[in-house]
Structure formats: structure tokens, C-alpha cells
């Protein structure tokens, strides 16, 4: 098996161990469209020593903040974050599911007021991490289908 061929980055963020096939969703959650000017490398369905297939995203020239990163925990709970400076990992951590999800995922209840034309962001509270269960602050519905309701 060939080694993964993405060149190391000098400065920026490497998101590793993303659930296979989810890299594009991760970029979408992080609000990275490609128009920002950063060099972004995406590797999908690459072989991982630990867990079969995985995705990897490298973003050059931008260090993502921890709260930004934690948003991706909903679809890539095992992702690890490496902050790179001058080709060295200066900080490494795992994503954590935040307590409150604001404007990240919509309530699954189509009749919820948060899905109507009102000047609010969807607001859901995490009530269980494993298995993941979230509760809409507005309608109170507890739900577990998170990935398909990502904004």
C-alpha cells in the first residue's frame, strides 16, 4: 500500500481521523468554501492504521479555534486536530461535542418555531454524548438524527 501523498504544511491546521466520506461536510460546517484563499487539501477514504478508512483535511495558513473545531464533532466524533507551526505540531487535541449547538443543526421537527420565518438561529442542547442526543431549546424535541439536519 502506498503512503498518503499530501505534502506536509508549514503553518495551519490538520484535521485527522475524520469519519470516512465526511470531509466535505466538515469543510461546510467550518464555513470553508475555497474562496478564502487558503490552500486546502482534502483526502477522502484513505487507509488508516487504526480504523480502516478515514478522511483528512489540511488547511494552510489558518489556525482554527477550538470552538470552531468542536462543531465538527457531530459528524466526526473521533477527529483529532493538529495545529502546525513551522512544520511542527505545536498543539494536538480531540474534538469535543459542545454543550449548546447554535446555528449548526436544525431541529428535526418541521413544525418547530425555529424552522419558521423568525429572527433566530436553531438552538439545541446536547443531552447525551454517547449515543448522541440533542434537545431543541424551543420545541423540546429530543432527537438523534443529527448529520442529516446539519445547516
Amino acid at each position, binding site marked *: 500500500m502506498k503512503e498518503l501523498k499530501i505534502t506536509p504544511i508549514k503553518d495551519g491546521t490538520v484535521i485527522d481521523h475524520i469519519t470516512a466520506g465526511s470531509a466535505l461536510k466538515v469543510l461546510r460546517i467550518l464555513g470553508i468554501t475555497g474562496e478564502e484563499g487558503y490552500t486546502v487539501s482534502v483526502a477522502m477514504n484513505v487507509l488508516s492504521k487504526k480504523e480502516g478508512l478515514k478522511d483528512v483535511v489540511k488547511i494552510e495558513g489558518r489556525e482554527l479555534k477550538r470552538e470552531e473545531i468542536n462543531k465538527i464533532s457531530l459528524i466526526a466524533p473521533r477527529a483529532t486536530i493538529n495545529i502546525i507551526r513551522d512544520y511542527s505540531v505545536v498543539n494536538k487535541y480531540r474534538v469535543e461535542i459542545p454543550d449548546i449547538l447554535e446555528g449548526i443543526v436544525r431541529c428535526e421537527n418541521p*413544525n*418547530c*418555531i425555529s424552522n419558521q420565518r423568525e429572527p433566530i438561529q436553531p438552538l439545541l442542547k446536547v443531552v447525551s454524548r454517547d449515543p448522541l442526543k440533542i434537545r431543541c*431549546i424551543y420545541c423540546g424535541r429530543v432527537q438523534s438524527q443529527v448529520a442529516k439536519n446539519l445547516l
Partner: protein
Amino acid sequence: MSFKGRDIIRIEDLKEDEIYKILDVAERMVPVARGEETSDLLYGKVLASMFFEPSTRTRLSFETAMHRLGGSVITISGQEGTSLKKGETLADTIRMAEGYSDVVVLRHPNEGAAALAAHFCSKPVINGGDGAGQHPTQTLLDLFTIRKELGEIRGKTVALVGDLRYGRTVHSLSLALARLGAKMIMVAPELIQMPSYILEEIEALGGKYEITESLERGVEEADVLYVTRIQRERFPDEEEYRKVAGSYRITKEGLEGCKEHMIIMHPLPRVDEISPEVDLTPHAKYFIQAFNGVPVRMAILSLVLGVIE
């Protein structure tokens, strides 16, 4: 414990002692609610009664409660003629009402509407029913009725009968009963049984329940038979609806074998689910239950407006 300025959005927001506090205050309000005594407890206070969906009992009993305590009421009833119809957001409408009143009661077709209103309104907001969501003041008057008729709630067995899937009344009530230590029997066909997310919440509160399709089982075991309307539109065809609705109809004959003290409640309006002959039995408490909405709502208004501590 202080209720002053508080919103009443979901029954789960109220702790056990807070629920009992409301019931105790409601008990004191009964003579005023009956018109046997007068009160000016809420003199000078204005209630914005905002009903964006049809309501008879909830709206009338809130407005009666306010009038009985010497307060005034401004009303929106139905979407016709209101700014909501013109496309105004609820967030904007509620901020307008906030400026005109001291307390707001809201009924709205969308779940979570009361929570949104509370977010935008600095005055207390009381949920008068939000879509298929919650109806906490109905639950409080149900609990008041159970306690008044049976002496206590803890340890009682309440059979919830009918549309448990879509009925917001039974959702709120079942969570409160779980919290207060009553046992429940969910009596409904599978199609309209209690949703799993409510059952999970009942379990999380330590509530005990059984699920059955048998009305006889409910009648036999219950201290309270809580009957709700089965709506035609929930069923794929007319025949299926008739079959189910017929088998869950409460008749005098069907009550044979029930406990002597068993009470029958219904949030009303009823259609065919309780035969009129049952009204004459000592078990029938649904009209008393409807009256109890007045003292309970008097208590809630007085507490959130801070005139009773």
C-alpha cells in the same frame, strides 16, 4: 421560591414543590373563581391574551381569571386581521404585546412558539398551547382536579386513553405524573400510542407505565381515566377510524368493574368518546375539571405577576 416574572413554558420547568405551590394557591382562589367572593388582587394589570389558534376553554378561563381578580384583558383571537396574517414574525408581534401588557398568554400553531416568545418578551409569558407541543396550564388544572377529587397524586394510577401520539395534553400530563410519582397506563392502538421520545422522558424522570391496547385493562386498574379525543385525520381510512374510535368509547356499561372512587377526566371538547349517559355517574368530573381552569389560572397569573409570593 418566587414565581415573580417567570415564564410558564413547559411543565418540566416546574419542580415538584413549585407545582404544589400553584395548586395550593389555586385552592385559595376557588371562592373568587365561583363568584362567591370578590377580589382586586390584579387591579391595574393587563393580560395580553394572544390566541393564534382556536380555543374556547383556555382563552375564556384565562380571561375570566383576570376579570375575577380585577384585572383587564386585551385579546387577539385567530389569525384573521392580525399582523401575523400580514407576514409579521411572532418575535415582532410579541414585542408589541409586551409594550401593551403586564403578562402574555400565547396559543400558537407551532411547537416552541411560547419559548420563542419568552426569549423576546421581558414580561412573563404563559404557554396556552403550542402546536402538538405542550399545554402546561392544562396539566396544572388536571393535577389540581386529581388532587382535589382523590386527595393526592402520588401512588395513583392514571389510565391515559385515546390519541396519545398527537395529543399535547397527554404529553405534558404524563411528564408531570411521572415527576409526581403516579403510575400510568397508556391505552391506545399502536398507530396513536405515546411517542417514544415522551416515553424516554418519562423513564428519565423515574416514571412507571404500562402500554396496552385494552380499554378494559385501563378501566379495571385506574384511579383516574383520562380520556382524549381520537381525531379522524390521524387514520388512513374512514373504516379504520370508526373501528378504533368505537372500541375506545366510554359507556356506562363499560365502566362495570371499575374502582368505586375512579374519576373520569377529559380536556374537552369531546365528540363521541364519552357517552352522555356517563355524565350522570359520580365518576364524571370533566365539567368540574373545566371549571378548575379558572382558579388554577388565577393562581398562575397572581404568582407570575408577583402579587402573591
